[in-house]
Structures are given as structure tokens and as C-alpha cells.
């Protein structure tokens, strides 16, 4: 998918200090009936966000106006469970470009990077400090710098570096995706496939 280049993102963040946020919470299965990619943001965290009668649950973070921004900060093991890319689409469609956690499920992490969301994995200590900074000031600004591979709490200058392989970094920085890469090596794949066992 074509997406915007990711360079430096400076934004306030929305805190979700819950562990094991699975993709069924991010987007429940009954909303997976669409045949297009857009529009899933309306149902992001549907059952945590709305009551059965579709009224907003006032205590859920997305319904609290004091929190906003393009960065979602989640607890450990974010994005576990189903492979549904719809979870990443819903997060993107809602307006997030970056998800921060101390641990990500593999498939969610891949799906995110494939559509231009940067998953930033930080230490548990640093995650705690982000949650505390947001608690102290809901509009606290985080800076995510992809080229330097750092995330910084701007009010305190507290910073940590994060890992990303140079291939994915290059893709996100330039707005490329794997399909572009694979199309450019079709002949090599074709030769390999003809000699493969199956």
C-alpha cells in the first residue's frame, strides 16, 4: 500500500496501559465484513469504546477529550492473536501513525510496518515513564525520530533508542513497501520457483 513517508513525528499520545491487547479488541471480528481497507477507524476498540446501545463509554481513553495525538501507547504484548491486518488499518484510519509498547506480537508488528505505522518497542521502564509523563500532562509531547531511531519525552528530554532493521527503515522513510521490492526481483523468483520441489 502506498503510504506517507515516516521521518520525525512529534505529537501528544493516547495511553492504553493494558497488557495483552489482542487484535479482537482492536477490531472485533463482526466488523471484518468490508471488502475495502478504509473506514475501520470508526470501530477501533469498538467494545471498549462503546456500550451495547452504541453510546460512548465515558471511562475509555478514546472518549476522553483530554487525550489526543498520532501516537498510541499500549501495554506489554500489544497486538496478539488474530492476523487480521484490519487491526492495523483501524489504528491508521483513526489517525495514529505510531504505536509504542514494551513488546509487540510478531504478526501485528509486520502488518503495521507494511502499511506505514511505526511500531516502537521500548523498555518496560521507559514505557512506565511515558505513561507517567502523560498522566502528569495529557498533552505531553513525544518525538519519534526514525532516522536516529530514538523516542523522546520532550518535556524532560528523557530518551531511548529503538531497533528497526535497515531494510524496513529504508522502506518507511521512503514510503516504499515489500511489493515494490518483490516486483523488482520477479525473474530471480521465477527461476528459483521453477527449481523448487513443490
Amino acid at each position, binding site marked *: 500500500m502506498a503510504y506517507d513517508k515516516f521521518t520525525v513525528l512529534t505529537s501528544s499520545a493516547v495511553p492504553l496501559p493494558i497488557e495483552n491487547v*489482542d487484535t479482537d479488541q482492536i477490531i472485533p471480528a463482526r466488523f471484518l*465484513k468490508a471488502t475495502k481497507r478504509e473506514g475501520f477507524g470508526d470501530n477501533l476498540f469498538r467494545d471498549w469504546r462503546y456500550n*451495547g446501545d452504541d453510546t460512548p463509554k465515558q471511562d475509555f481513553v478514546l472518549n476522553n477529550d483530554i487525550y489526543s495525538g498520532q501516537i498510541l501507547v499500549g501495554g506489554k504484548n500489544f497486538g496478539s492473536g488474530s492476523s487480521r491486518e484490519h487491526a492495523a488499518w483501524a489504528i491508521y484510519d483513526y489517525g495514529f501513525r505510531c504505536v509504542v509498547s514494551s513488546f509487540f506480537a510478531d504478526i501485528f508488528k509486520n502488518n503495521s510496518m507494511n502499511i506505514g505505522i511505526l511500531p516502537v518497542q521500548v523498555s518496560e521502564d521507559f514505557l512506565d515513564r511515558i505513561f507517567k509523563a502523560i498522566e502528569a500532562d495529557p498533552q505531553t509531547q513525544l518525538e519519534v525520530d526514525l532516522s536516529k531511531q530514538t523516542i523522546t519525552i520532550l518535556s524532560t528530554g528523557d530518551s531511548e533508542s529503538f531497533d528497526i532493521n535497515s531494510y524496513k527503515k529504508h522502506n518507511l522513510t521512503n514510503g516504499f513497501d515489500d511489493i515494490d521490492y518483490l516486483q523488482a526481483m520477479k525473474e530471480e523468483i521465477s527461476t528459483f520457483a521453477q527449481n523448487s520441489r513443490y
Partner: protein
Amino acid sequence: MSSKPTSLFDKVWDAHVVRSIADGPDVLLIDRHFIHEVTSPVAFLGLKTRNLGVMFPDRTFATADHNTPTINQHLPVADPLSANQLRALEENTSSYGISHWGLGNPKNGIVHVVGPENGITLPGMTIVCGDSHTSTHGAFGCIAFGIGTSEVEMVLSSQCIMQPKAKKMRINVNGNMSKGVTPKDVVLYIISKLTAAGATGYFVEYAGSVFENMSMEGRMTVCNMSIEMGARGGMIAPDETTFNYIKGREKAPKGQAWDDAVEYWKTLKTDEGVVFDKEYNFDGADIEPMITYGTNPGMGMGISQLIPTAADIDAGKASFAKSLQYMGFTESEPMLGKKIDYVFIGSCTNGRIEDFRAFASVVKGRKKADHVTAWIVPGSHVVEAQIREEGIYDILIEAGFELRQPGCSACLAMNDDKIPAGKYAVSTSNRNFEGRQGPGARTLLASPLVAAAAAVTGIVTDPRTLIA
């Protein structure tokens, strides 16, 4: 010159690497690609947008399963959005020349049931599908894992995906299992020990006598749930049990090709001396029938035990409390005796013939508890036919149950098979997440034997008290 000892995982992975990118992923050739109606439409849309074709249409197989009704499949699908997805799959597969076993086709069923059933899944393959339970096919010694829709588009357009190689984990379970303990209990036990994120970043090999003595159906149940501890996939070295299962199936090799294949398949095992990044050892004798009490599959316990306290487990206290509150349970109470409302047997985890045999072995001569609603959903039409041929159908009817038509059904509740809010369901599926089986539904994951015991008693019951 002696070659370096190599793991099963490395043997299969390395044979499929088209290109390795320095400080990046490997480009991996995919042998078989399964698609279904929910995670493929946007991938086909992507092909159209970029004006790309399908590189090897004969290496992709389509079935409709996630969003199909399990009653009255001969009638038009009532939900217009579901009908639209099914139509999109039919049109997309037809225009790109991909084999499609849609609703009503005798080969239709859950993707991870029909693949092995038709001999599409063979040892040593790389297999992907836009579904996390693709790990099921690892039971045949395949590298099989779930992918997102962008990756479905990659496989369609280039037969490859780009993934960094996972780390290696081996889980050994040896020893004798006691009566009433099934493959589902083995995997729920492992996940309860490792937690829901304990194998994230790893590809798991299951080894030891417990798996060697398991049927293919049982091995599929185990590999299926690898993803529930975060693993990319799980695999078991192929052996005579594997070859016997495959032999004669429609797309299995025949004649000389069969002999050649078996010769190769016999090399697919981990050599002596391989060092894994992580290795666990468990004793089969320690495993009892399992049940989950919380909202992730790692929150499982022996059925005769007490629900643990937050202090007992290595997890966030707030998340643990939230989970128990959702379930309506408290710390340190027993699960045995809890009243249940629904029973679901089916899914890619426990929707094969052996699972229905186990269920029938308990309900035979007994009656369904009056207050229990039971959904009995075969994994495929082939399984459904076996249920009838073997007389299991008659046992079910006699005990007051009904048999539904194949599909994913209440495992993810995309169709009408939803557990109502607040109700308890003993389910043979794979996930007990909040709302997984319907908004507000409360899921207790368990084996077909535990499900059957609950169905006839109406409460959580140790199946060992009902079997001779």
C-alpha cells in the same frame, strides 16, 4: 567432512530462501497459499490498483469459511455484507484462475481442515494464509504461519513474502499421559506454562514421545495453538503416522513420486546436537484435563485446580483483575461445578473427526443438559460425512444434540453463531479473548471431552468422572 547439525526448521526455511537481505528479512518462496473470504478482498483490490497479476495461480487455494452460516447453507446468505465477501472471493478466484471451494462445494470447510484433508499440505512445504491458525499445517513438518493482507497480496503477486528468520524453540513432552488427557490439554498446558507471549519471536518444534504417539489430528490441534503463545508457528517432524495420513489423498504424490517424496520427508528431522535458542521439557504425566478461566489462552489451569491469584502469576495485576472481572470469577475459587450456558465443538483447533469421536464417547447414552445450548460444527463436509457414516450422528441426536454445517462458526462469531453477553461457553476453539465469541461472551477453552462433560451435566465437570 561432517556437516553442521541442522534443525527441522532450518532445513525447511533454508530450502526456500530466494534472497537474504543484509540487516533485513529473507525473501521466502511460498509453496502453498490458502485464502478465504475475509482477509483476501483487499489484497485482490491491491493487485488491481497496481495492475499486477497472480504469479502462480495453481499454488493458491481458496475456501469460504470465516463468514459463512452453519445452517441452511443451500439458501442465499442473508447478511448482505457477508454475501458480498463471498461473491468477491468467487469473482476474484475466477478471474485469476484460482481453485475455489465455496459454500455448497463438497470440498468446502475450514481452510486448515480442508488443506490437509485433500493432501495439499505436504511435509517440508512453506505454507501461508491470512489467518493466524495457519500454524496448524506445521503438524506435517511444514513451516506454516499466518500473514496479514499486505502479505497475501505479496504472495499472490510474487509467490514470496519477506520475513526475518525467527529464533528456534523446542518443547519436549515425554512420559505417559493419563486417561482423559487429549492433545488440546497438552497445548493448553504448554501455553499456561509459557504465557500468551512466551514464544513470541520464536518458531517452535514439538518433540518427544507424547507427540510421536499422537495422531495427525492431535498434532494439528497442538500446532494450531502455537500462535496462542505468540509463536510464529509450530512444527513436528514427519514420520510414519504422517505418511500414512497423507497416502492416497487427492493431491498427494502417487507412484514413483510418492516413494521419492517419502525418501525426502524422512530427512526432515532435527539432527542430533542442534542447540535451540530456547528449550523446554515437560512431563506428560503432569498434565490433566485443562480449562481456561481468563481472557487469554495462557490463563489456563488443570480442571481440578483453583483459579490462581494475581500473586501466583507473572503478569500485570491490573490486567489480571480486569480479566477475572470480565469473566465474573474470583481468585482461588474452583472451576469445577460452575454453571455453563453454551457448548461449542468445532473450529480449526478441534473440528476434525477424532474430536467428534471423543465428544460422542462421553455423550453416548447420556442426555444434553436442558439449559445448555450446544453448537456442534464439523470442520468440513468430509468430516460431516464421516460423522454420519460412523454413527456419531445417531449418538448425538439420541442425546438431544443437533449437527450444524461446516465453518469457523462461534470460534470468532463473525456469522450469527454468537454467544450472548454474559453467558458462559465451554468451547473447543482457540481464543478466549473478551468478546471473541460475541460481545460480552465468556469463553472457557477446553478439549472435546471437557466440552462433552459440560454439555451433559450443565456445569464444568471433570470428564474423567464420566469415562470408564
